[in-house]
């Protein structure tokens, strides 16, 4: 029964996150909302494993937590540098005269 309550709350929270991801004014709102939805999805997978009596879902939840983090970093890097292959880091970008990287 507690699993049903947790699942219902998580579903409501995911719908709210989807609202922010759909009408977020900037790109960063959407990235933030998608990251948050990913965390809620990890919780949802974990509690669904308990709810269905198959706790092997924990492996999927662990994997999803990893993918969520890497995906957020990759999206931020892609929208900052324009491609994935460019080496990150502030000093490298400044050395190469990177575009739009003249912060501090």
């Amino acid at each position, binding site marked *: 029964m507690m699993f049903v309550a*947790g699942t219902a709350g998580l579903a409501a929270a995911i719908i709210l*996150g989807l609202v922010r991801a759909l009408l977020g004014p900037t790109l960063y709102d959407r990235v933030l909302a998608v990251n948050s939805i990913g*965390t809620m999805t990890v919780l949802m997978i*974990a509690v669904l494993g308990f709810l269905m009596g198959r*706790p092997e879902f924990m492996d999927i939840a662990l994997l999803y937590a990893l993918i969520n*983090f890497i995906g957020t*970093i990759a999206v931020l890097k892609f929208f*900052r540098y324009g491609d994935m292959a460019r080496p990150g880091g502030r000093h490298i970008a400044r050395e190469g005269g990177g*575009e739009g*990287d003249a912060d501090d």
Partner: protein
Amino acid sequence: MPGKVAGKATPMINVILDIVSWVLILSGTFFVVTGAIGLVRLPDVYTRMHGAGLVDTLGAALFLAGLMVQGGFTLISVKLGLIIVLLFFTSPTSSYALANALRSQGVRARATGEDLPEEKEEEGSTSTPS
């Protein structure tokens, strides 16, 4: 469920574990829903990051701790603990990356009242947006 078999010898401890699990899962759900409402209703990207941080740290940790109580001393609880540790390390990192990207793109925080001149002075002295 393997966790319930372990505690079935004494029913009293089972009831106590169920109550603890209820409290942890419900408070975790409360923090997740509160963070999601903040994600929708707060006015700025920086303040929305505050709501997302609520979901990532306290909501997820309480929720998974409630599931760990329900799981008992099994491999499931070990995996849930791994998820908690992973979220505690990756969530501040991605939050920092997002704030760093925001700041390097010149997105200003929407300050109100007395915070505004101080914020502007600090921005003008330290950064030169391209």
